C-alpha cells in the first residue's frame, strides 16, 4: 500500500512539472507595429440646381481634404487608432446665402464673395479595439468629433465581432450615436433687420429695389430647434465560400431626430408672386422637413480571387427610408496585378439611382399650403454613373524609408461621377501607408 502511494505521488509530481514546462500557445499580435496612413483628396463638382437658391443656380464646389490615421499596437491584443482630418472648401452655392456683395448683380448662377463662400471642416476619431486570445472575438469602442462654421458633432460608437467555424464565418454588431448642433444661418433676406443669422453685416431690405412683386412677404418663422441626433445599429455577416471567394451581408438601421432640414436652403412657392433684387429671387421660405427620419440599408459584397493577376470585387445595396426614398447601388472593381504584384490597377464602375423624397419639387413648384418642402436635388429622383481608375504601388520589401518609417504602399485613384440632373464631379485621392520600424 505504501509502495503504491509513493508511485501515485511521483506520478502527480512529474505531471505538474511537465505542465509548468509546457510552452504557452503562440499568439500572433493583432498589429505587428505602428502603421501610419496619410490620405488626401481633391474634389470638384459642377451643376445648376443649387439648393441654396431653391433648385437653380451654380453648384460649383472645390474641396481639399487631408487626413492622418495612426494605428498603434498597445500590446498583443489591443490597438489604438487616432484619426484626424481637415477639409477646406469653396462653394458658389453656399456663397449665395448672401448674394448681395455689391460687386456685381446678385444672380443664382454667379458666386458671391460673401463670407459663406468658403469654410473649413475638421474632425477627429479615437478608436480602441481588443481581441481575445484566440482572436475569435473583437471588441471596439470609438468617440468622434467634427466641426465647421455652422455645424458641430460629437459621436460615440461600439462594435463586437465573433468569428466562428475556424474563422470562416464572422458575425458582427455595431451601434453608434451622434449628437449634432446647427448654428442656424438663414438666407440673408430672411434675417431680422439689425441682427440674427450670425454672419456679417445685417441686411436691410429697404436699401434695395425689389422688382416683380414689390410687396415681398415671405412665409417664414425661425426654426424652433437646432439640435440633431442620429442613432444607428447594424448587423454584419461574412462567410468564406471557397479558397478563392468570400462574401458578406450588412444591415444598417438609422433613426434621425431633430433639425433635419438645412436652414439656409431656399424654397419658392408657385402660388406666390415672385420678388427679385437684381437677378436674385427672394426666398418665400426655407426648406422644411420632418423632424424624424428612419433609414434602412441592406448591402452585400462578393469578392473572388480569379488568379494571381485578376480579382473581382462587387457590391450591391438597397436603401429605403420613411421620406419616400428608395435606391439601388451596384459597383464592380477589378484589381489587376502587374509587375510581380508590385503595381495594381483598379478600374471600377458604379451605378446609383434613387427615387425622390415625398417633399421634393423642383424650383418654384411647391405650394405654400404644404407643411414640408425642399428643392434640394440631393433628395430628388435621379440616376448616376461613376467611373474610376486607380494605381497602387506596394513596396513588398519595405525598401523605401522616411526616418524610421518604412513605406508600405502608395495608392492614387481618380473618380468621375455624373447624374442625369446635370451634375458632375471629379475626385482624385492619394493614400500613402508607412510602417514604423
Amino acid at each position: 500500500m505504501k509502495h503504491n502511494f509513493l508511485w501515485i505521488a511521483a506520478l502527480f509530481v512529474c505531471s505538474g512539472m511537465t505542465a509548468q514546462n509546457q510552452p504557452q500557445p503562440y499568439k500572433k499580435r493583432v498589429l505587428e507595429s505602428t502603421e501610419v496612413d496619410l490620405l488626401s483628396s481633391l474634389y470638384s463638382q459642377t451643376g445648376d440646381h443649387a439648393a441654396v437658391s431653391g433648385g437653380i443656380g451654380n453648384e460649383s464646389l472645390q474641396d481639399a481634404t487631408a487626413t492622418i490615421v495612426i494605428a498603434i499596437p498597445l500590446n498583443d491584443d489591443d490597438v489604438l487608432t487616432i484619426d484626424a482630418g481637415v477639409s477646406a472648401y469653396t462653394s458658389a452655392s453656399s456663397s449665395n446665402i448672401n448674394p448681395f456683395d455689391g460687386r456685381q448683380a446678385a444672380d443664382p448662377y454667379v458666386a458671391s464673395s460673401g463670407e459663406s463662400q468658403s469654410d473649413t471642416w475638421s474632425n477627429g476619431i479615437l478608436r480602441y479595439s481588443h481581441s481575445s486570445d484566440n482572436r475569435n472575438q473583437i471588441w471596439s469602442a470609438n468617440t468622434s468629433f467634427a466641426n465647421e462654421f455652422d455645424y458641430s458633432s460629437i459621436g460615440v460608437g461600439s462594435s463586437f465581432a465573433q468569428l466562428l467555424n475556424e474563422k470562416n464565418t464572422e458575425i458582427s454588431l455595431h451601434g453608434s450615436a451622434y449628437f449634432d448642433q446647427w448654428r442656424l444661418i438663414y438666407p440673408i433676406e430672411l434675417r431680422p433687420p439689425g441682427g440674427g443669422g450670425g454672419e456679417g453685416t445685417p441686411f436691410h431690405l429697404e436699401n434695395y429695389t425689389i422688382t416683380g412683386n414689390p410687396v415681398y412677404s415671405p412665409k417664414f418663422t425661425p426654426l424652433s430647434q437646432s439640435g440633431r441626433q442620429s442613432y444607428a445599429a447594424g448587423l454584419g455577416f461574412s462567410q468564406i465560400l471557397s479558397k478563392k471567394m468570400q462574401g458578406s451581408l450588412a444591415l444598417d438601421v438609422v433613426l434621425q431626430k431633430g433639425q433635419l432640414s438645412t436652414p439656409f436652403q431656399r424654397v419658392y412657392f408657385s402660388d406666390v408672386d415672385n420678388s427679385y433684387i437684381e437677378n436674385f429671387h427672394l426666398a418665400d421660405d426655407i426648406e422644411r422637413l420632418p423632424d424624424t427620419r428612419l433609414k434602412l440599408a441592406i448591402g452585400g459584397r462578393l469578392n473572388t480571387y480569379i488568379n494571381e493577376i485578376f480579382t473581382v470585387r462587387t457590391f450591391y445595396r438597397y436603401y429605403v427610408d420613411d421620406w419616400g426614398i428608395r435606391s439601388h447601388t451596384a459597383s464592380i472593381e477589378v484589381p489587376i496585378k502587374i509587375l510581380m504584384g508590385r503595381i495594381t490597377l483598379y478600374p471600377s464602375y458604379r451605378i446609383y439611382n434613387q427615387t425622390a423624397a415625398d417633399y421634393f419639387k423642383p424650383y418654384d413648384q411647391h405650394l405654400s399650403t404644404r407643411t414640408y418642402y425642399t428643392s434640394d436635388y440631393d433628395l430628388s429622383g435621379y440616376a448616376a454613373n461613376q467611373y474610376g481608375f486607380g494605381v497602387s504601388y506596394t513596396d513588398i520589401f519595405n525598401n523605401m524609408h522616411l526616418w524610421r518609417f518604412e513605406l508600405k504602399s502608395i495608392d492614387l485613384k481618380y473618380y468621375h461621377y455624373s447624374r442625369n440632373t446635370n451634375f458632375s464631379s471629379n475626385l482624385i485621392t492619394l493614400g500613402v501607408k508607412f510602417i514604423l520600424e
Partner: protein
Amino acid sequence: MKIAGKLLVLFVITCSSCVVVKEYEMVHLNDPDMILGDQNCDRNLLTAQAYREAASGANGGKTGGGCGCN
C-alpha cells in the same frame, strides 16, 4: 424589400453548406484586394457620396450624423 429578404435567406443557406477553409489555405483570401470593405484611400469618396446621395449605410461609411448632410 421582399427580394432582399429572400436573397438573405438564400445566402445564409448557401453559406451553411460551405466547405471549411483551413487558416493555412487562406493565402488568396488574405490578399489585400479580397478585403470585404472599402480601401482606406476610398474613404473620401464614401464621404462625397454620403453628402450627395440620399442613401447611406451598409457599406462601412457614414450612416447618418456627424455632418449637415442628408
